[in-house]
């Protein structure tokens, strides 16, 4: 078997390898304790970097920085009516910018039940998916989390909704009395293969659904944080 170089091991950790190359590294890892130790060291390093820097993205942005970007006085209704750009475009744009990086080639710890349960005839998010929907901010995601949140928005029915994507599943869920109801489910990022994988911008199907269900604009970083801190309340 070919020796696994350090660059190769790092590319594995960074989710930059395709399935065949991943399998090769995994086979080598099984057989090589030294390689495993290297990987463990690098995992720890990643965790320490996340622990140090990710909280910065969750802090409230200082006023003087916000003020540089906020319009002075804007009548929102007029502004909304004037805007020619279709929502579809801004959703795709925001999703593409926010859904950065990809889940690292690591499987969720075995066993356990799936990310979605059927309860009272509807699909409800469970496990790590539920946690991600509850807590993860699209604007402040750890680069190697298993689930990526795309956009968050208020639906026309007043529920807060979010798009998500992990290796197996992408979709759209809205928050109600039962928790996160999955409204749309589609294949996840592993269904899209290439050498250096693009930041997943989510399935077109999911974005299409988001566009149709959205009332107004997607939540910005600040509104998203407030919604999370308030437990994803009904907007009206």
């Amino acid at each position, binding site marked *: 078997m070919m020796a696994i170089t350090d660059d190769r091991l790092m590319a594995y950790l*960074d989710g930059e390898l395709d399935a065949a190359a991943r399998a090769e590294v995994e086979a080598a890892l099984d057989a090589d304790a030294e390689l495993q130790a290297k990987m463990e060291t690098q995992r720890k390093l990643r965790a320490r970097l996340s622990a140090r820097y990710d909280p910065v993205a969750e802090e409230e942005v200082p006023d003087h920085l*916000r003020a540089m970007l906020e319009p002075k006085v804007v009548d929102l209704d007029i502004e909304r009516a004037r805007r020619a750009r279709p929502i579809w475009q801004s959703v795709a744009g925001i999703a593409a910018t926010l859904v950065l990086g990809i889940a690292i080639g690591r499987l969720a710890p075995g066993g356990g039940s799936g990310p979605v349960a059927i309860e009272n005839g509807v699909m409800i998010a469970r496990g790590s998916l539920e946690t991600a929907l509850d807590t993860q901010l699209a604007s*402040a995601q750890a*680069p190697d989390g298993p689930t990526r949140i795309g956009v968050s928005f208020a639906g026309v029915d007043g529920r807060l909704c979010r798009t998500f994507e992990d290796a197996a599943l992408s979709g759209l869920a809205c928050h109600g009395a039962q928790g996160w109801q999955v409204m749309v489910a589609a294949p996840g990022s592993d269904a899209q293969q290439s050498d250096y994988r693009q930041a997943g911008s989510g399935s077109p199907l999911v974005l299409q659904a988001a566009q149709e269900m959205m009332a107004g604009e997607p939540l910005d970083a600040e509104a998203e944080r407030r919604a999370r801190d308030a437990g994803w309340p009904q907007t009206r």
Partner: protein
Amino acid sequence: MQGFEGELLSLLPRLRRFARALARDAADADDLTQLALERALKARRQWAPGTRLDAWTMRIMRNLWIDEARSRSRRAQTFAPEEAGTLVGSDAHRDIERAAEMHDVDRAMNALPDEQREAVALVLVEGLAYREAAELLDIPIGTLTSRLTRGRQALAQMLEAA
């Protein structure tokens, strides 16, 4: 909210995180963020709608940071070692105090060469794909990955010893 400003606003938390990974401390990071926003607003016509605004803005920030780092190292070189010794009580002293209260991770990042630090910040902190980071830095992917590997090994070593 208008498109360009609105999108920048939603990127702001991430831009602050990126700045924090590049700059020496939190105060410098927010200064860097402010400069980058000023520059981005001024240069907004150069941004092609439909392309990645995050990468565009991070590139601006990174270039500002490199300029600043270069002028800082020029300033440092103008002091001969014996003169630097007489600075205790002023700048040098404050730098030492600052370093003492620094977080382990900050100290390790500060010890990295700039080219390794920016690679680590883009890929490990911001989660950019190799191709995206290499494009942003105008270097081949192979160069990026070797800087990244060296930077990580150095960080792991420093933090293990800490």
